[in-house]
């Protein structure tokens, strides 16, 4: 008899999760539909693209460089045992371009941009600015949510390209210090094994990451309640939920990439 409340609570939690996922899916679906309907709010999308993309670039470049250095150090330690140091540039580039770069960029952007969107829209909600937009005959969903979601979707692949190159450059610096490898040789070896199927699907899967970051944080911002406490909550939950969804989506996307590009898994 005593286990009943526990099962009730678990059941309620599971139902609440489904309800949340359903509402989020409806929100995302509406955003996709609205994206194709005028007005297209081009200047707002560009403004957010600058905020989310250009202003995230220093974080992405720094992180990418550090990851490149660390990956190079680890790879060197492993490959030295087999006398395969020559493979360090290629191995590092493949790891970065296929997985480390896209996933790291996704998680960094979910932290920086997702938290910002959640907090900004949450604050707008509790201070009635979203209602004020509607009262001014502006579709607040389209003006605030759709533009941010699209900007996230456009920014993500561009940031991934940045993190990939910063990582490869970081790897070169580490390798140059350790072995004195010339930069021309390093970059030649880096791209020796990289093909179209390594770069394109891995980079463009982050459009989905951008969609998830934008959707989750806009949804949580739009549904904020409980004043400033709610704003903080929306910000934190935006980061947590979008990070989890990115990791889960990555599993599915990698399987899809393997299906459509079997050579990648080879």
């Amino acid at each position, binding site marked *: 008899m005593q286990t009943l409340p526990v099962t009730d609570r678990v059941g309620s939690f599971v139902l609440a999760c489904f309800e949340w996922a359903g509402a989020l899916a409806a929100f995302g679906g509406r955003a996709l539909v609205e994206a194709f309907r005028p007005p297209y709010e081009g200047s707002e999308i560009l403004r957010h693209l600058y905020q989310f993309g250009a202003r995230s670039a220093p974080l992405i470049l720094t992180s990418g460089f550090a990851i490149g250095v660390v990956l190079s150090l680890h790879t060197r330690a492993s490959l030295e045992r087999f006398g395969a140091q020559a493979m360090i540039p290629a191995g590092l580039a493949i790891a970065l371009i296929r997985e480390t770069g896209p996933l790291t960029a996704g998680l960094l952007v979910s932290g920086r941009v997702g938290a910002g969107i959640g907090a900004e829209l949450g*604050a707008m909600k509790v*201070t*009635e*600015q979203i*209602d*004020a*937009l*509607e*009262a*001014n*005959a*502006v*579709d607040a969903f389209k003006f605030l949510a759709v533009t941010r979601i699209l900007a996230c979707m456009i920014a993500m692949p561009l940031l991934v390209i940045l993190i990939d190159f910063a990582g490869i450059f970081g790897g070169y610096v580490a390798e140059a210090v350790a072995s004195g490898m010339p930069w021309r040789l390093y970059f030649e070896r880096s791209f020796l094994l990289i093909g179209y199927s390594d770069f394109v699907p891995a980079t463009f899967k982050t459009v989905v990451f951008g969609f998830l970051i934008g959707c989750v944080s806009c949804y949580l911002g739009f549904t904020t309640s409980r004043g400033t406490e709610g704003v903080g909550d929306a910000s934190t939950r935006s980061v947590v939920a979008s990070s989890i969804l990115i990791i889960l989506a990555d599993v599915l996307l990698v399987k899809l990439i393997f299906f459509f590009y079997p050579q990648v898994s080879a």
Partner: protein
Amino acid sequence: MSEPAVRLDRVSKSFAGRKVLDELSFDIPPARAFCLLGRSGTGKSVALRHIIGLVRPDAGKVFVEGREITSLDRRGLADVRKRMGFLFQNAALFDSMTVGDNVAFPMRRHTDWTERDIRERATRKLADVGLERDYDKMPAELSGGMQKRAGLARAMALDPSILLVDEPSAGLDPMTSAEIDQLLVERKKQGTTLVVVTHNIPGARMIGDELAMLNEGRIVARGTADDLDRSDDPLVQAFMRSEGGG
């Protein structure tokens, strides 16, 4: 007889099982000022939000200039909203824009005026409320009273025929409150229909052609300020004798 500018027809609304509006009905002729009075939580602001379609009724109908807005789609509702202005209780200025851009915002969205025209008109609207020098300031740099005046300038940006005002004196000192009331009186003289939600009795006396007292989602008294002064209802008597709150 001309069509009412605003008409609520037996509008009911509940939130979380609590009835906030209970078959509320009233109509407001054009170019008149209608003040909705009542204690906090009696549904005044909810009624105001129904008029601009921010809240949809559970039952009943809302008419704006003869058009039934409860069944309108988003585009139809936007057309109606372009003819209305809304001054929010806390002004609700967009805090990412300057004060001038807040006022220019509806002009940029809904007109094809040149940027120079828009700046001139926005400056003029700000001058109407005494803020022409604050065009390039951010909302956070303004006092509460100044924010409210900027909110009024934004609400008046497109010269709406109907102006909805939620608690114009909330959080303001008596002098600033009287200044806002005076600005509203001037708008009325220029032919704007005013719907003002307030619990500030001196302000309501100054602005309103007609006052209505709301209690538990229903109008319990309606008429001129003199009519309400003579009401036998103890609640209305107590309210009208009070100074109201800022």
